[in-house]
């Protein structure tokens, strides 16, 4: 136990750990200060008071007495003597004695009820108790059961029944207090009323504690959760024009990093929960959709279907997922039907898309000047005949005609747009509930040819067959379509403004800069027919039995099957410069089945509550790919549709082989147990263990791994000393410790294999085998042991949040251990490394202003982590080839240190012999007198130092305005746009980047003649702050909507990626921009969009 809280001096090393420690010190100080303040408060009629009053109005005297004596007086104003004034002196007298003195010469007497309530009555009269009854509802008119109805100042209290009704006997003139977790407490004077109905209003701060959230193999009330489970704010799940829900979530959840590597329509983002817990294996979290591990892409999930997303972050929460838990788990739950009349909803949005930022290449004049300076700097006398300062023959006509081509404009689409339509019907009776949704989403990108279209259908059904038997199904189909050849943004930036876009016949000129053959027309891709589609057919059936004989016992069976066929075909023909024609066709299919048996038992014994869950599951995954490539077609008429007509045929696909996309199978067999125990809702304990068997593990080790965890929490707010402190809505301390795994390896790594190659004998192809990889029969899972400490709080009915710190240590990292090539192999996979992550996540939600018509809420997130490689290979040496350094973070950028640029007159002989003016000047770190590989150093990291986000929501009557800004800071990455390598004389360059000349003496840019022989990749800071979205919503008032015969109607305007603040030079700091000339799907501008959306429901 000691180990789990203070794990081997967790908070003693790095600076980040000290920072954590400081945060926790403050947190503990805060809690103890709170306790002290609370204990000072007491209540007694034996209080001694001193006071001196002169001619004070009778009523004011009573008020003063209540305040000074800390007693509660009950009286009605009518009985008080009118105009009577009191003068009085008391020194250390009992409060009741003083009250007695005040009542002298009046008709009044006092009476003490229940030793706490002091009632004033007319002399001789008895205190009358009167019955009061009523009904408590929420704002929607739904009855609230379990509401505490108490007499103010007294311990007398009752709770409402299932219909929200109460009945209580109270002294006349008393006040009733209505309190209910999650709702704002109300105090109402009863007067003479015998009936009092009350509508309670949700307290946005404390109600979230009462929310039931999904925690994996079950649900829990938030206040009972012991591990680190964070919910994506509901506001991120609706009214956002994104095709992939992760694009909306990006930046809004502390400890969950979403990175859009490209903005091209339909590309999916990279997901990461907390730190980097693996080097080679996936750090993508496991996605569990409606309780079942999800084998598809996030594009297969219609954002409109999502009811909630929970992210499991710490070992306690994720250990139940065993070998798949170490990179965190995303639990996505889709909407289901509710009891009630059928509701038909139509949700839609549509709007134009724009470049959020355009990175312009040089115009004609700048281009020509560049070419002249290039020749000067190269010392080349332009060969005769000089092409009028352009480089290539094909540029001459446009140059002489003064005609410039704006290639960025040529490749972009003027009518880029995004739209989405959802039509759903849901409803149900007590026994049958249904939710059916159909979707059509289409993103016509801002570059020509790019598009994404999704059509999806979902049907969720729940049926109570008997009181003890429920069955249901979750069925969905999604079709993702990324069809179409597209333009090439990289080439568009490299084309000469005088290049020839079209041939005389109106077709695209293949080589706009002929005789230059290296750079082809960026629009040629539009000639390429491309079929690129993926489908997801998933069906899950469940059955739930609650046998009456054992109360609290539940058996749940999930059976899920997914079929994921995909298709990818393309053809390049003569019009693209391919003079023989190449066709390619690929079909992939994945089948995945999962069976889960979940047995749970819930029981209360007095104040003790237990919750047991047991799981036995099996999963099998099968992947198959077929591909055909053919070339040399008689003409281009049929594209890839008559692939057997190609003269040269090859089956299989070298690319697929190189990507390890071989047909494969794996199986997973798991058992899991979990115990949740709580005492009085105050002390919470969770114990879990999972045992996973994975087929991909080696024959020399067990195929099974066991992953235990423990977590405890203390709901301090429920302790007596805080229970009545109204400004504390919640206060909970949590700690957890546990181990999770990463199965890390794809199938067949444990077996020595032969690769397949081809050879040729006098023109006849022969398939050959060559030594592939040396198998390691001892491979096993990577394991991550983590500690998490957190505080959840809610204060003043206005602010709530979570602060968490964590430390994870991953061992048995699966690394490709290099072997001497003398062995005939270059490497072998082995479990040999260690990593560590420390970090902190902070989420704060506050209601800054709350008036009748106006509210202003803020959600703030902040997180950072520090990653450290603690062991590599056996020899404990850093791996400079992979940029893995012991004691340093992953993502190190290991390169030369740039000092500036050599200027005319400077002598490089001492540190960089041979350097010319205009060459980059590097630091000779080892003082060897020249720049060699030994002068490289770590100049930065691709991992951000911290990330944060802030959502501000303003609501005025039926309008709401939401503004979301997120930021990523402290990272660097290489910037290919700054590096023309040895091509500065051949291609156009960005206008804003510039180059060195003897005259401008730039100290950041090299001369055009510089060929960058060291391959310096220009690492640059890529921190940015982005206004991600602004949404203005109008909720048409119910009375208007009803008069139109509708159930509800809201509409909104939303803008995405409205502005980015960054020092990055290039298209966008977040999305990747790769160098090179190949058709690159990733190189795509960041997109800004403005959409109008509408949500309608019919009654």
């Amino acid at each position, binding site marked *: 136990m000691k180990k789990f809280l203070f794990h081997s001096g967790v908070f003693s090393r790095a600076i980040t750990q000290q920072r954590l420690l400081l945060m926790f010190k403050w947190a503990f100080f805060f809690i103890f200060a709170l306790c002290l303040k609370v204990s000072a408060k007491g209540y007694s009629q034996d209080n001694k008071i001193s006071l001196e009053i002169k001619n004070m109005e009778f009523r004011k005297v009573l008020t003063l007495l209540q305040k000074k004596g800390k007693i509660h007086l009950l009286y009605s104003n009518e009985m008080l003597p009118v105009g009577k004034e009191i003068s009085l002196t008391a020194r250390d007298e009992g409060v009741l004695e003083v009250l007695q003195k005040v009542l002298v010469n009046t008709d009044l007497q006092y009476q003490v009820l229940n030793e706490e309530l002091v009632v004033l009555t007319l002399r001789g009269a008895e205190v009358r108790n009167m019955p009061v009854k009523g009904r408590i509802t929420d704002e929607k008119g739904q009855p609230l059961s379990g509401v505490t109805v108490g007499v103010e100042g007294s311990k007398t209290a009752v709770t409402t029944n299932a219909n929200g009704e109460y009945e209580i006997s109270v002294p006349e003139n008393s006040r009733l207090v209505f309190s209910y977790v999650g709702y704002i407490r109300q105090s109402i004077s009863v007067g003479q009323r015998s009936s009092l109905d009350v509508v309670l209003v949700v307290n946005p701060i404390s109600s979230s504690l009462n929310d039931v959230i999904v925690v994996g193999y079950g649900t829990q009330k938030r206040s009972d959760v012991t591990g680190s489970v964070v919910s994506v704010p509901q506001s991120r799940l609706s009214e956002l024009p994104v095709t992939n829900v992760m694009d909306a979530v990006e930046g809004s959840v502390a400890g969950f990093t979403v990175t859009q590597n490209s903005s091209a329509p339909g590309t999916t983002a990279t997901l990461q929960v907390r730190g980097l817990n693996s080097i080679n294996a996936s750090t993508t979290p496991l996605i569990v959709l409606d309780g079942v591990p999800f084998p598809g892409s996030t594009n297969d999930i219609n954002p409109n279907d999502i009811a909630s997303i929970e992210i499991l972050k710490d070992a306690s929460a994720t250990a139940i997922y065993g070998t798949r838990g170490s990179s965190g788990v995303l639990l996505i739950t889709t909407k289901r039907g509710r009891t009630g009349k059928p509701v038909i909803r139509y949700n839609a949005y549509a709007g134009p898309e724009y470049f959020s930022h355009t990175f312009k290449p040089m115009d004609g004049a700048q281009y020509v000047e560049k070419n002249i300076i290039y020749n000067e700097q190269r010392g080349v006398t332009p060969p005769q005949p000089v092409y009028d300062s352009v480089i290539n023959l094909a540029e001459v006509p446009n140059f002489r005609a003064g005609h410039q081509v704006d290639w960025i404009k040529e490749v972009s689409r003027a009518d880029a747009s995004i739209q989405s339509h959802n039509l759903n019907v849901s409803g149900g009776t007590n026994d049958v509930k249904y939710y059916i949704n159909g979707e059509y989403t289409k993103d016509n990108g801002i570059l020509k040819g790019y598009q994404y279209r999704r059509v999806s259908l979902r049907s969720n059904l729940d049926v109570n067959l008997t009181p003890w038997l429920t069955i249901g199904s979750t069925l969905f189909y999604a079709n993702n379509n990324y069809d179409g050849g597209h333009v090439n943004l990289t080439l568009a930036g490299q084309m000469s403004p005088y290049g020839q876009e079209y041939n005389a016949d109106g077709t695209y000129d293949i080589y706009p800069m002929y005789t230059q053959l290296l750079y082809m027309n960026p629009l040629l891709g539009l000639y390429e027919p491309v079929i690129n589609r993926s489908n997801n057919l998933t069906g899950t059936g469940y059955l739930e039995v609650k046998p009456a004989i054992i109360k609290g016992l539940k058996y749940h069976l999930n059976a899920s099957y997914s079929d994921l066929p995909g298709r990818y075909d393309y053809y390049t023909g003569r019009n693209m410069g391919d003079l023989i024609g190449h066709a390619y066709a690929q079909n992939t299919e994945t089948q995945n089945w999962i069976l889960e048996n979940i047995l749970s038992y819930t029981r209360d014994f007095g104040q003790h509550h237990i919750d047991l869950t047991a799981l036995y599951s099996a999963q099998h995954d099968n992947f198959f790919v077929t591909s055909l490539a053919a070339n040399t077609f008689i003409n281009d008429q049929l594209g890839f549709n008559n692939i057997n007509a190609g003269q040269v045929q090859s089956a299989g696909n070298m690319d697929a082989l190189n990507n390890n996309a071989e*047909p*494969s199978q794996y199986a997973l067999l798991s058992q899991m147990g979990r115990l949740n125990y709580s005492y009085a809702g105050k002390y919470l304990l969770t114990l879990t263990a999972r045992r996973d068997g994975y087929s991909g593990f080696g024959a020399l080790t067990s195929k099974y791994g066991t992953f235990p965890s423990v977590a405890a929490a203390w709901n301090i707010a429920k302790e007596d000393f805080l229970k009545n402190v109204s400004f504390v809505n919640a206060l909970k301390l949590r700690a957890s410790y546990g181990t999770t795994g990463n199965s890390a390896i794809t199938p067949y790594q444990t077996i020595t294999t032969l690769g397949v190659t081809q*050879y040729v004998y006098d023109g006849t*192809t022969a398939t050959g085998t060559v030594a592939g990889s040396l198998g390691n029969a001892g491979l096993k899972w990577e394991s991550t042991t983590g500690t998490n400490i957190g505080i959840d709080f809610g204060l003043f009915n206005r602010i709530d949040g979570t602060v968490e710190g964590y430390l994870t240590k991953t061992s048995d990292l699966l690394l490709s251990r290099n072997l*001497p090539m003398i062995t005939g192999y270059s490497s072998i996979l082995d479990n040999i490394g260690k990593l560590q992550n420390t970090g902190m996540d902070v989420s704060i939600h506050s209601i800054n202003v709350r008036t009748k018509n106006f509210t202003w809420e803020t959600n703030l997130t902040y997180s950072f982590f520090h990653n450290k490689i603690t062991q590599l290979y056996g020899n404990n040496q850093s791996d400079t080839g992979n940029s893995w350094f012991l004691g340093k973070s992953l993502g190190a950028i290991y390169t030369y240190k740039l000092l500036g640029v050599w200027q005319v007159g400077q002598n490089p002989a001492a540190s960089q012999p041979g350097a010319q003016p205009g060459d980059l000047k590097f630091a000779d770190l080892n003082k060897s007198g020249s720049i060699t590989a030994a002068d490289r150093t770590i100049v930065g990291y691709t991992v951000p130092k911290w990330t944060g986000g802030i959502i501000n929501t303003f609501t005025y009557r039926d309008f709401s305005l939401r503004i979301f800004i997120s930021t990523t800071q402290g990272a660097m990455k290489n910037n290919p746009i700054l590096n023309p390598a040895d091509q500065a004389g051949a291609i156009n360059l960005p206008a804003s980047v510039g180059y060195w000349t003897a005259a401008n003496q730039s100290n950041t840019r090299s001369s055009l003649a510089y060929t960058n022989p060291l391959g310096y990749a220009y690492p640059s800071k890529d921190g940015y702050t982005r206004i991600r979205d602004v949404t203005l919503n109008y909720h048409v008032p119910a009375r208007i909507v009803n008069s139109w015969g509708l159930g509800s109607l809201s509409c909104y305007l939303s803008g995405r990626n409205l502005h980015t603040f960054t020092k990055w030079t290039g298209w966008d700091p977040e999305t990747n921009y790769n160098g090179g000339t190949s058709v690159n799907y990733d190189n795509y501008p960041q997109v800004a969009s403005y959409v109008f959306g509408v949500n309608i429901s019919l009654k």
Partner: protein
Amino acid sequence: MKTKFFLSILFMQALLFSCKKSFLAENLVSTYSPSNVLVDSLGFEAAMAGLQAQVRTQYTYAGDQGLIGCMYLGTDMANTIPSQSTAAMLPYFQYNTLTSTDPGALYYWGWAYQTINNANLIIQAAENPAVTATGAANKAYIDAEARFYRAYAYDFLVTLWGPVPLITVPLTVPKVNFTRAPVDSVNAQIVQDLTNSIATLPPVTGVRKEGRPNIAMAQQLLAEVSLRMSNPAVTQQLCQTIISSGNFSLINSRYGVNAGQPGDYYSDMFVYGNERRSQGNTEAIWVEEQDYNIPGGSTNSDQHRRMWVPGYYNVAGMVICDSLGGRGIGRMRLSRWIMYNLYDSNDMRNSIYNIHRVFYYNNPSSPLFGQQVIITGTDTLTQTSPYSTKWNNYQPTNLFGYGTIKDLIMMRLGETYLLLAEAQFLQGNPTGAAASINALRQRAYPGYPAYGQVQPSDITLDFILDERARELVAEENRRMTLVRTGTLLERVQRLGDTGATAITGMSAYNVLLPIPQEEIDLNEGAVLTQNSGY
């Protein structure tokens, strides 16, 4: 009822999950392994195709586009300038930068040991009595082929590095305690392998498939190895066996696909479509085949053309064309010694079809069309230097042509005469040596014997090496030849370029390549000593 129902569901589940133990077993469904390939004749054939594909990557790999340069730069044959160099090229003419982290040495070292591993896998299985699905004769045939390639790889290693680790059985578990075996041990293994091959391999007329090892390949390799081992008598005997076998003859008349085009019979040998025996090349002993646009026709992107052919189309007014050899980028150029001093004008090997020296504007739309190209500037030689046409390669359907797709002539009869001459000279027989060289001269000089004939008094080792350059320019592995004959340093000092393309910083120790530092570092269990000087 409810209880029964509940229990029966549990029971059904129990049945469903009484999983077989094999549920987690790993079954290879899509991958070959030695245990399912090297077991029958079809598997051995595939393994041999794989081994040959691996061997071919020696000079056809473009991981660094300049790898071929390692074998020519910094010798008397070729030079370049730093701005045309890749990381693999630079250390081979600026020798002070040749260190143990040299990427070229790393690649070639790795190529050799990967070849050896593939050969070892085959040899082990072919010599395994438990493999019975194929007969003894077939196993011996495959064994002899694989041993030829193993010997070839070890000869490459021991020539360029000196003592090297000797591995003759494939590994099943990682090993990191290698030590260098003496040169004599490596030589003994090479001789044993080749002796075995010569005993079993068929003549070139009897190979299973064109391009598979024949006895002459093993004989010529052993002939060269014997020169290196100072056994010229063995060399002489082997070369004479090849020459007298009747299976090969020097090309001395026009033939093949371009026979009707301008050219000469020497240039015919290096035209795509003419290079292999079945295409009429009677001189070919060992040809590594590459075919344009046939699966398996190439394994990587051969850079020979881009290395040797200049980037003439960078001159405004010039466009890529077939007669100029397609699209080169002139990473290397011939040394000045070869360009200007080596040949005389009567030597066919110096004809305009074999060494291209003069360029004319060839873009009809250029005002200078048809005029001779004369350009000035700092590095114009990358655009218009004289070059050997042996790597010309032009595919009209692939103008850019990243890879050079043509056969690699690894051994031909022309070289047999040169090896023979060298053996004869070393045995004090300059008359025989002169006769051997004159066999080539007779073919190369249309005016022979008035022109070109050599006399016994002309014969020196240097003359023989000069003649090798004349005959085998851009073809033989010049570095290996000069290292083998111990002449690299002296010839670089005497004949190497100066000025912008100077070979600099060369020391005696640079004759042997550095053992890659990664190999030394990864070999944790034993010390792999570095060649002195590095």
